[in-house]
């Protein structure tokens, strides 16, 4: 009886571990596979500077890369102050009443909204209602809708993680609540906040569905556009990976596959860099905290 149980225990736990090993192997394989596939493009300098080219070889992601960074920065300009303010409210002011509850539920719902629904919403509000066309601004605003709840949560967590003594000490010295937040709490929470901003930026980098509806111009060619106008449209890297499948017939475009491999590998590299960067910052912050 006990022996049977012991064997059962071994087999069951072995199976659990086996599944996890399979899972991790699959994930690692995925990253390595994408990097290997896209390596020739990643290491080709012209890949980063030349425009996409449907007619022949030598495609690059220059304009897409520029556009992606443009939309990312623009959207973070909206997301960071608004999300930080929301996080400050939840961490420092909010009570436990119904109003706070409503705000929290709204934030959760916003965080769960499918990005394609946000895309249609963004098209209706930022494009149609303003009688304009898909643009970087419309894309950035839609991305703000997607990222705002994330930024709020990150900011709230960063402030809540601070020791209570910091708050009480500042208030005891006669500082007002807003002075305490601005001069004591925010500086102390800065490393965690920067980590959060980096992770939020990483999410923007890979978002595609919402931009497809609000900022894309559906053309792999024809926009070697480095203009600075927020009202211009343009594809981002992640959008291109989808457009590759639908618009460029692999037979008609000899190096479309190579191009897409390069884009996928670049996205992976950037996401890994963002993640490692955010982690490293978090560790530095923890170490500094211990010193004090």
């Amino acid at each position, binding site marked *: 009886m006990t022996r049977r149980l012991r064997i059962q225990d071994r087999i069951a736990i072995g199976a659990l*571990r086996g599944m996890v090993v399979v899972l*991790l192997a699959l994930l690692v394989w995925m990253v390595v596979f994408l990097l290997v596939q896209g390596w020739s493009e990643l290491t080709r300098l012209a890949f980063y500077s030349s425009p996409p080219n449907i007619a022949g070889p030598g495609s690059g992601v220059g304009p897409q890369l520029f556009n992606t960074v443009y939309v990312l920065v623009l959207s973070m300009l909206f997301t960071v102050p608004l999300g930080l303010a929301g996080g400050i*409210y939840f961490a420092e002011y909010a009570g436990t009443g119904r109003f706070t509850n409503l705000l929290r*539920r709204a934030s959760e719902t916003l965080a769960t909204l499918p990005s394609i629904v946000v895309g249609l919403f963004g*098209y209706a509000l930022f494009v149609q209602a303003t009688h304009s066309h898909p643009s970087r601004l419309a894309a950035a605003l839609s991305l703000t809708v997607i990222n705002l709840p994330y930024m709020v949560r990150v900011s709230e967590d960063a402030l809540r993680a601070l020791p209570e003594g910091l708050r009480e000490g500042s208030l005891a010295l006669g500082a007002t*609540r807003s002075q305490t937040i601005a001069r004591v709490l925010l500086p102390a929470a800065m490393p965690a906040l920067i980590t959060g901003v980096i992770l939020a930026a990483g999410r923007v980098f890979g978002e595609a569905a919402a931009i497809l509806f609000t900022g894309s111009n559906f053309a792999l060619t024809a926009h070697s556009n480095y203009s600075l106008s927020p009202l211009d449209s343009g594809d981002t890297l992640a959008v291109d990976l989808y457009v590759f499948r639908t618009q460029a017939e692999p037979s008609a475009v000899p190096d479309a596959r190579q191009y897409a491999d390069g884009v996928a590998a670049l996205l992976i590299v950037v996401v890994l860099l963002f993640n490692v960067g955010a982690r490293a910052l978090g560790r530095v912050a923890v170490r500094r905290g211990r010193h004090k």
Partner: protein
Amino acid sequence: MIETSAGGGPAPSASAAPAAGVHAIRRRSRVLDQLSHRAVAAAAAANVLLILLVVVFLALRAAPGLKSIGLGQLFGSADWQPDAGIGFGGSSAFGALAPILGSFAVVLVGLLIAVPFATSAAVVLAETNPRVGERFIRPAVEVFVGIPSVVYGYVGFIALLPIMRHLAPPGRDGSGVLAAGIVLAIMIIPTIASITADGLLAIPVALREGSLALGATRWQTIRRVLLPAARPALVTGIVLGFARAMGEALAVALVIGDVNVIPNVRSEGLRALFEPFTTMTVTITDGVDKLAINPDGTAARYMLALVLLVVTFISIVVVRMVLRRAESRR
């Protein structure tokens, strides 16, 4: 004090001035304090405003479809020809039964694959190998939450579809419900795993030790004590994974084949998993280049977006209910 009296005349006014200054500063900082309180409250309230705007604008754009298409056709027919009516004198049809069934089919397949893997990962992370878990599994989970969904779809397209082609009945290209389910599963495993692991870690140590002290094996403890105790977390993870899978568009679009015909499950059985199919999100994505020129088709897509919105609302409510019940039991 001595200096002011030595200076004579202006002493009283000099001592009054700083006092007034302090008052002014106090008043100003109090006003600033209240202003900043209102400002951050307004920022938090922006969440509610945004939700309302989303509901209003989706409803506004879907409304024309109520009259020209009708709920009966949208939910009762599988005849979907959104573009037949524009320019060619034909008539369009907007039966969305196929994408609606398709969404639930791919998400069901995705969950069936994801839940065992995610639960295993959570148990290994929280229980059997916590050190390895914190060193490798948790960082891996975090990285894979961050990988763009369209990249998952792309890997599915270039690596998974060729494999599926070998498994599929002859004449099929490998795309379909199974391929989409696998891609979705890989995407939502990290979500479910991390929430479940947190639930397991929050279980009081006494529960585990009590079970082991009574002579239960580790596996018995995991199955009979720990997993039941962490069930609210597991359910929360599954519902959030469900919502995420339901709303995923581009990753699914890359591997499902996008054919608006319901596979005949009765005659095909499990082979139907290899039939190209479609989902609500894929059908919405399809219309992106005709948003401005096909008003009826666009209205139909906004109606599908409302369906997705309702699914999101229901998911949030279910999560709330599960968590509240778990709290009240404690």
